[in-house]
């Protein structure tokens, strides 16, 4: 059947002399074989050094072994079972989620006014603010963390300021605490929040606000009824971005929290680099990856299903 059809096809194509239809089609569709050739190096590279390693540790995560040499290894779910029954790991997962949520919240509160100002500002001002907020992303995270270390010292600027304002009577332990980690993370990822929100603010039709102002709405009413709901997609994508980046951040929690704040990435790092528990560490990695993706999915979906559905297109 198949062969016959192929033959039939060939016959129809084969006659020389009048192939105008066939040629026209060939001209319209550019040949893509050279394109595939250009793609080959990068595809092979990413397949060999990105896809295979990721699948390899997924495979390892289902192997349980008692010894480092890998003797007595067998397939099982025991790595995952340990993870979800041991209160130490569950607690670590909870701390990670909590810190990531709070970091997103801080970034949202501090980032929204910046985005709003950018949306109302002149093109020149916009470009300047974009440069100011995006540039720190190009400076190593260890440098930014060291800056916070200086500011959060017991006799540092932040404690001095809070004491001068009379908000606290003696220096707080900001370093090596959850507060320190939240400050570090929200600072590191705030630019992403601003850029996400500002993109949705740019898309708001300015005539909407004009119309509502003409109809007598106060600026506050204007903001609550038009700007805020229409910028929700940006708020959601900004929060999702900051949340997922915070969930998997290692350097900032390690430097700003240390052993006092055992978030998942710190626990995973310890299992792999210090305890050499590779199969268990692989399982932890995938749980971290899975939790991040799942929370992002639930968060986005929750918003889509809510009453703000109409603003998501």
């Amino acid at each position: 059947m198949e062969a016959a059809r192929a033959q039939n096809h060939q016959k129809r194509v084969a006659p020389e002399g009048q192939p105008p239809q066939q040629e026209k089609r060939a001209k319209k569709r550019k040949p893509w074989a050279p394109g595939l050739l250009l793609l080959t190096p990068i595809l092979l590279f990413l397949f060999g050094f990105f896809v295979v390693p990721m699948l390899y540790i997924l495979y390892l995560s289902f192997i349980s072994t008692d010894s480092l040499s890998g003797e007595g290894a067998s397939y099982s779910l025991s790595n995952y079972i340990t993870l979800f029954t041991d209160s130490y790991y569950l607690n670590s997962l909870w701390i990670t989620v909590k810190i990531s949520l709070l970091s997103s919240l801080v970034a949202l509160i501090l980032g929204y006014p910046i985005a709003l100002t950018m949306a109302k500002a002149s093109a020149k001002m916009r470009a300047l603010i974009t440069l100011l907020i995006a540039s720190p992303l190009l400076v190593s995270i260890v440098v930014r963390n060291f800056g916070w270390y200086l500011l959060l010292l017991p006799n540092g600027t932040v404690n001095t300021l809070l004491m001068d304002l009379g908000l606290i009577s003696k220096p707080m332990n900001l370093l090596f605490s959850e507060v320190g980690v939240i400050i570090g993370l929200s600072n590191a990822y705030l630019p992403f929040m601003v850029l996400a929100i500002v993109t949705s603010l740019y898309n708001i039709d300015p005539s909407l606000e004009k119309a509502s102002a003409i109809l007598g709405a106060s600026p506050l009413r204007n903001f609550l009824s038009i700007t805020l709901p229409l910028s929700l997609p940006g708020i959601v994508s900004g929060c999702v971005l900051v949340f997922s980046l915070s969930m998997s951040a290692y350097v900032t929690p390690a430097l700003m929290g240390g052993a006092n704040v055992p978030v998942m990435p710190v626990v995973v790092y310890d299992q792999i680099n210090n305890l050499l528990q590779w199969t268990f560490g692989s399982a932890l990695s995938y749980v971290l990856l899975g939790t991040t993706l799942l929370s992002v999915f639930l968060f986005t979906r929750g918003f889509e299903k809510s009453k703000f559905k109409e603003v998501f297109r």
Partner: protein
Amino acid sequence: MNAIGKLRGALAVIGIIYILIPLIAVIPASFTKASYPSFPPEGFSFQWYTKILERPEFIDAFMNSLQFAVLAALFAVIFGTLGALAIAKYDIPGKSAITSFLTAPLSVPQLVLGIALLIYFTPLMLAGTSIGFLISHIIICIPYVIRLVLTGLSGFDYNLEKAGAILGANPWTVFWKITLPLIRPAIISGGLFAFLTSFDNVTVSLFMISPETRTLPIEIFSTMQDAYNPIVASVSSVVIFISVILIVILEKIHGVGKVFGGGHH
């Protein structure tokens, strides 16, 4: 300007200060006279800069960082430019899927990527080697090059290539004389961005290091974990200085905000 506008502006200034203040604090702190890190600094001296020269590990790490970043950027630009050209120019089936695949290393947490590569490289004898280190950095640089070059190609007029071909240029000449010069700004910004991505990286590098492959951010990271020392401030200031130079160039060519997806309207 009304009261609400003023309030909005004031809150925005607070937010921008929050973003910039850790970097602002580091530079004055590097000129401290004291033997412990502090801000505001105590007194004024250059001692923590001259002390960098007495610590060969920082100099070596700096040279390593430079070499790895140049090589990683070079390879990422070659792979990435070829890939982006293929996607932009040819009607390859599954184009959008391929584009998402090429930028996928961005969506996998660097910690997980580092772990996967360490475990995978160990039996291959690549763990802790310069080659292994370089491969890991090329992977994290590729997505940015793809993004930037694809953006650069989005307004590309393929008629110019056709005109060249009609006038008798061979494909190689067309590429060198027409295509490359037109997308050069995108390639340069992709390369600079890849350089900074590699130069700044800590998380993936942590799984790839050996005594021979320690980079500057790794050296800062471990110094900070062992003992806080004002030398971190002076080394960090050097890093900020280098970053600022490259940021200025990037801003001139491409716009730093656009790299991260912030669209100017």
